[in-house]
């Protein structure tokens, strides 16, 4: 018996009557921008002035987390360095999908050499710039987890050890994706890859192997190490900005879901990255000179199952009637250990 109206999209922008006295609970502080937020509180990505380091037309898969993570990080670096950034890239998806000859998606100076030497090339670029007196130009090196934790590891350790003035960013999608999803030393236990098939008594990747690169970087006692995720852009941008303000060797490890390699829906890329953080499997922290200085608390804790179940690479853990409770518990124990180690919940302070 009543007349109803429909919802509506926003009308013209309201006058600047808005105040910052009252927080933006509508959006929390968690959306990328907000019409009511101070410009400084918005992310770089919310701005039409962002560098768009990787422009449209690149050939990454639908929903690629690495394409997103790299643009997030480099746009923040560009903002921090006033647009003067040179990027060096290891071989991998990021390199391949952005530069099929004769096209490029890069809108910043960008170099690629080979799979294993990006840290060394970046050290060289930094040295060259220093020799030319171009102190204002900053160098960012980047690679996938394969190039970082495996083949380029020696070069990277050297770059750390010499404290070369390079920010190295690893985009961790937890396998060698570009060549067809082979295991790397960042592949998590139980994950199915082309080289760790879901066959036999203990399907998928083995437990108890692999490297924790952020902690290895910390062991070099370099000025700055951080982990970040495409699920928390405010945090990621703050870390890149912080890193850009520091001289010497810096390392940021960004978690970037890969729909192809993980067997996940393309629209779930950010959601999965968020679940990795919220379960405790991917802790977000910062460390300076080898000491953890800050952690990002978990806002809404979830069991690891919420994160694992949507991914086909873990499907063998959830076979109907044959749930692998033992190995699920082992993965949960890894998350719980992270929560304790980094103090990720209010109950577990650092």
């Amino acid at each position, binding site marked *: 018996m009543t*007349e109803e109206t429909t919802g509506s999209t926003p009308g013209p922008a309201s006058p600047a*009557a808005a105040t910052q*006295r009252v927080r933006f609970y509508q959006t929390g502080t968690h959306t990328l921008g*907000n019409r009511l937020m101070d410009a400084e509180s918005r992310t770089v990505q919310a701005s039409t002035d962002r560098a768009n380091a990787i422009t449209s037309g690149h050939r990454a898969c639908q929903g690629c987390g690495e394409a997103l993570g790299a*643009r997030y990080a480099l746009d923040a670096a560009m903002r921090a360095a006033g*647009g003067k950034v040179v990027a060096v890239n290891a071989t991998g998806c990021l390199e391949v999908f952005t530069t099929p000859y004769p*096209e490029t998606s890069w809108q910043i100076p960008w170099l690629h050499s080979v799979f294993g030497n990006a840290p060394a090339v970046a050290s060289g670029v930094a040295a060259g710039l220093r020799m030319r007196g171009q102190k204002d130009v900053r160098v960012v090196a980047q690679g996938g987890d394969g190039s970082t934790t495996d083949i380029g590891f020696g070069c990277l350790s050297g770059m750390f050890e010499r404290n070369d003035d390079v920010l190295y960013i690893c985009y961790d999608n937890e396998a060698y994706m570009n060549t067809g999803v082979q295991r790397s030393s960042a592949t998590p236990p139980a994950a199915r890859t082309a080289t760790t098939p879901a066959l036999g008594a203990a399907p998928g990747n083995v437990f108890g192997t692999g490297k924790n690169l952020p902690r290895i970087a910390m062991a070099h006692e370099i000025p700055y190490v951080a982990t970040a995720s495409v699920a928390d852009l405010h945090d990621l941008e703050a870390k890149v900005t912080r890193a850009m303000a520091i001289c010497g060797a810096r390392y940021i490890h960004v978690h970037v879901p890969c729909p192809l390699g993980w067997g996940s829906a393309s629209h779930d890329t950010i959601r999965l990255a968020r679940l990795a953080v919220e379960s405790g499997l991917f802790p977000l922290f910062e460390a300076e000179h080898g000491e953890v200085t800050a952690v990002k608390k978990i806002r809404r804790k979830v069991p690891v199952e919420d994160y694992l179940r949507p991914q086909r690479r873990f499907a063998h853990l959830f076979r109907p009637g044959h749930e692998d409770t033992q190995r699920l518990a082992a993965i949960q124990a890894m998350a719980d250990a992270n929560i304790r180690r980094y103090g990720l919940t209010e109950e577990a302070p650092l």
Partner: protein
Amino acid sequence: MTGTLPFAITLDPGTSRLNHTGTWRTERPVYLSRMPPCNHACPAGENIQNWLFHAESGDYAAAWAALIAENPLPAVMGRVCYHPCEGACNRGQLDEAVSIHAVERFLGDHALREGLVPRVEVPPSGRRVLVVGAGPSGLSAASHLTRMGHAVTIREAGPLPGGMMRFGIPKYRLPRDILDAEIARILRLGVTLELNTKVTDIDAAFAEGFDAIFTAVGAHLAKRTAIPAHAAGRILDAVTLLAQVELGEAPQLGRRVIVYGGGNTAMDAARTAKRLGAEEAMIVYRRSRDQMPAHAFEVQEAEDEGVLIHWLRTITDIDASTFTVEKMEIDAEGRPQPTGTFETLEADSLVLALGQDVDTGFLARVPGVQIAKDGVIAVDAQMMTGRAGLFAGGDMVPAERTVTVAVGHGKKAARHIDAWLRGTTHVKPPRPALAGFETLNTWYYDDAPQTRQEHLALLRRQTGFEEVTHGLTEDTALYEARRCLSCGNCFECDNCFGVCPDNAVIKLGPGAGFAIDYDYCKGCGICATECPCGAIQMLPETT
């Protein structure tokens, strides 16, 4: 690439923008507006999400304008509406519903303080409409019809306008300066109000030259019940009591008062009796607390003020000041059944709050007018009675009896009357899909508990008619407005613009929203998943 090359780039490579990845797409993101559940639940058809959107930015004038486009009595409604919107509010599933009524009241009061007035933007239609009854339904219809360009006259039987908002709802819930000011604003639009003018002959009114008539005479005949009374004390009905109090003619009720009934009227009668000085104000109700038609918060407020409620009791006998009550039991069908166990209560007067009937006499005579079940007037989907040009709404037609429904009927009838006068039909626009909780990505909203409205000190509540519930301050109103999740409607958070791995979202600028660049959108759907408010939908590609 043309123009100046970026820093340190020496070659001119081809850009990947030559590669239109949009051809990969199997699904396309499309921006849409969904129906927010609050709007869906509002009997007055308010666009709550939209006026909260304006309020969030501190633009209270725009918020109020959007509010009164649907409801001309926001300061009243923010106080007396039972706010079904809040029961439907998605935020309720997150922490607590947005206190919509409190923000509405803030906006209504703000407009009164600032003297904001709506504009009549259309030229006069030359048509005359008579509204019978100056209750919320009649006032709403008059306001909307006037703003549509018609000349409206209201004829009201009573000495003052407002209907049950004045002669039913007590002052301590709805201060009269607020009611008077909102009614005066409607009249200032150019509505003619004739008081003390009871309409008894509809045909004569048409003969006077009115092109259409909207009747909203309410339901004022108190229902009675037969109780064997030997030497009955004072017995009166609740609506008479409340009307007399309003006119300054409060009757003597004595020290102890029994109110019989379990609706909101019973609560108001008992709370009024308390304020008039009764030491004991009791309610006798034949069903249980859970079955009471009164809202839980009203029962609570009555009990807080010292009203004693006897559940599961019927009055079987009255002997002077001694009332015999029988205990009841709820049977398997949920109906109260007598138990044969009796008690007595002592009281000086009995107030019957057993509901009201519609006085249909003057309408029953009109050819074509049909009486529906329960003695109310039958209307069609256009709110028209069986007599062409005679419309009806509010308490007198089959519907829930609230100020909000009455106001909604007034608006709905106005739209149909307007169409009828212009020889067309008003077609309600199709309603978009509901913005259910599952369409939201609530991760992006911060935790924020609801603001509680302050209450008057208890002693003052028990002794006077001062308003019980306080309003919000500007800060708390702004905070509360900003708790809105903007269900189903873009609020320009920039998430879609930021999360696209392919830079395929175009930001159109403040107020203009976003567009998808389908040349590059691969259809991954991240924008739709990460939109906090569900304003993006993935649709299959057709080609």
